């Protein structure tokens, strides 16, 4: 079993996933934290507090997904596809919409 040199495209793909996981995961967990602040009962402060506590689980789930999915491209596309509805929900609740 020789040590193979791994191709550059592989390395780039891994780097891309790492950035997607770290940045995208943080973004998605932050947006969901904002949303929790508005939709959980008890007022903004309680909702925000709960949201912050849950955010790490969401961050972890996103990281796992980014590395499990079939390619780095799918990871980025998936992150954007997840961010869009979340962004819309956030916009809606932060302007006073009720869920």
């Amino acid at each position, binding site marked *: 079993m020789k*040590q193979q040199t791994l191709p550059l495209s592989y390395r780039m793909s891994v780097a891309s996933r790492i950035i997607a996981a770290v940045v995208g995961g943080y973004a998605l967990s932050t947006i969901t934290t904002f949303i929790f602040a508005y939709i959980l009962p008890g007022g903004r402060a309680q909702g925000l507090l709960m949201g912050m*506590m849950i955010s*790490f689980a969401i961050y972890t789930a996103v990281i796992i997904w980014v*590395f499990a999915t079939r390619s780095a491209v799918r990871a980025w596309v998936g992150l954007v596809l997840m961010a869009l509805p979340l962004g819309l929900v956030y916009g809606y609740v932060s302007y006073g919409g009720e869920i």
Partner: protein
Amino acid sequence: MKEGFRQSMAWLHTWTGLLVGWLLFFTFLTGTLGYVNHEIDRWMRPEAPMVSTPPSAAELLPKALARLSLQTDQAKSWSIRFPGGRSNNDFQVSWRAQPKEGERFGKFTRETLDPVTGANVNENVRKTGGGHLLYRMHYRLHYMPARTAYWILGICSMFMFVAIISGIIIHKKIFKDFFTFRPKKGQRSWLDGHAVLCVTSLPFHLMITYSGLVFLMFTYMPLGIDVIYGEENEDQFFEEAFDEAGPGPKEIMPSAATSPLMPMLVEVEKYWGAENVSGININNPGRANATVTFRPRNYNKLVTYTDTLTFNGVTGKFVEGKDVNFASQTNNVMLSLHEGLFAGPLLRALYLVAGVAGTAMIGTGLLLWSKKRKAKLSKGGVAHFGIAVVDRLNLGTIVGLPIAIAVYFWANRLIPVDFDARQDWEVHAMFITWGVMFVYPVWRPLDRAWFEMLCLMTAAYALLPVVNLLTTDRHLGITVMHGDWVLAGFDLSCLAASGIFALVTIKAYSKVTSNAEPSILITPSPLREVENYIEKSNEEPADGSVASSTIITN
């Protein structure tokens, strides 16, 4: 990474574990020692009296107030801490001065008082960071600003949580493997050992890592407060979230005599029970907005931070507390679980066992990475640079850090008591030693370095009670006779630890001399067993653990 879910999770587990494993080892070890930080404190301050049964709060209150009233500048707050529970001879008073121009908080001073005379004992007891400083490094590291440390540790904690989750995912037969340990089979045994250590205390690891993140979540996830409340309104968020009264009016209120505390203490002790007042906070003493808050001992309660009783400082009337909201209760419980302050002796021992298991889990994981890489090398191959670096970091951390911590304790006994900077130099000694422990395995051949450093670790802990005997009068001969089992326990634990280290050292010696089997300690000479393992794992793994070769080629 097209191989499939489990293989990509194996890749993720390997790298999130490896890249920050050494720092996580440090965090876990100092954190575990943090569960006995009071006890370590007491050992490191041998001049403090060996009080077995402290006087009652009612007896100590006048002495505390006498000391506090001596302060001429009117303080923003006073605090009294009564001995008892785990802090058996910590009778302390502290005060915070009014903040000066531009300061957010005023200067904080703390004194330890003698329970018998009420005099300040700080002058008689050696200055030391004690167990608290060792524990503080667990969340604050050292030699760097707080925010830097919090961010480094936050990243490490996220890595650790991802490593735990991915570890669970790749562990196919997690229940069966609970009862699987195949000794003396080289790499297989290390994998089994790593898995058993992780899985048996898995709930603890999940809890401790996640609650660690929650502890500092206002640093890691600040955007919620900034976006929803606005940066200037941070205080408003904290008031609403934790049902706290705000910091109060910025101007200093007019003078008003503070109501006597003794009747309040009597009433509180009737409600909580005689020995259960752990301390008193007096906010704005001598002012019209004075409040007096009593703190209970944390026994057996998970929601502790809000369990206080408050009185109006001027009228002496009891003030009804507000109900705690759900979110802050949840937060409170998570933090309490992490800190384990509520734990009695048996549960605290379990916390220690779980912490040690976690530390060993990280250590065995690091060693396993190196072992697997070496097994992959072709016959007679030499470890390449990455493996060489990992090997040195492994040795320097897994054996070197315990040695460095022993040196912290040695320094506490050996640095002269009247040396002003002794507290800083105890810590410098620890980190200088740790640094040397990384250089040593670069200089010596690896297998010899393992054996020699293990010898050093065994000796460092075995001789610590002897150093204690030679330098203080709090050694085993005296502490056992006096019945002070906390102090005696420290020395006895060092002896017990060195006993275990001695067994490991003997094992390492036999590996160094015999050179018979491939082991983690030697650059491997390939044997049938190792090759068989690799061939078998190239087929579909039948027994549920992840094939080593797929981990390595990723």
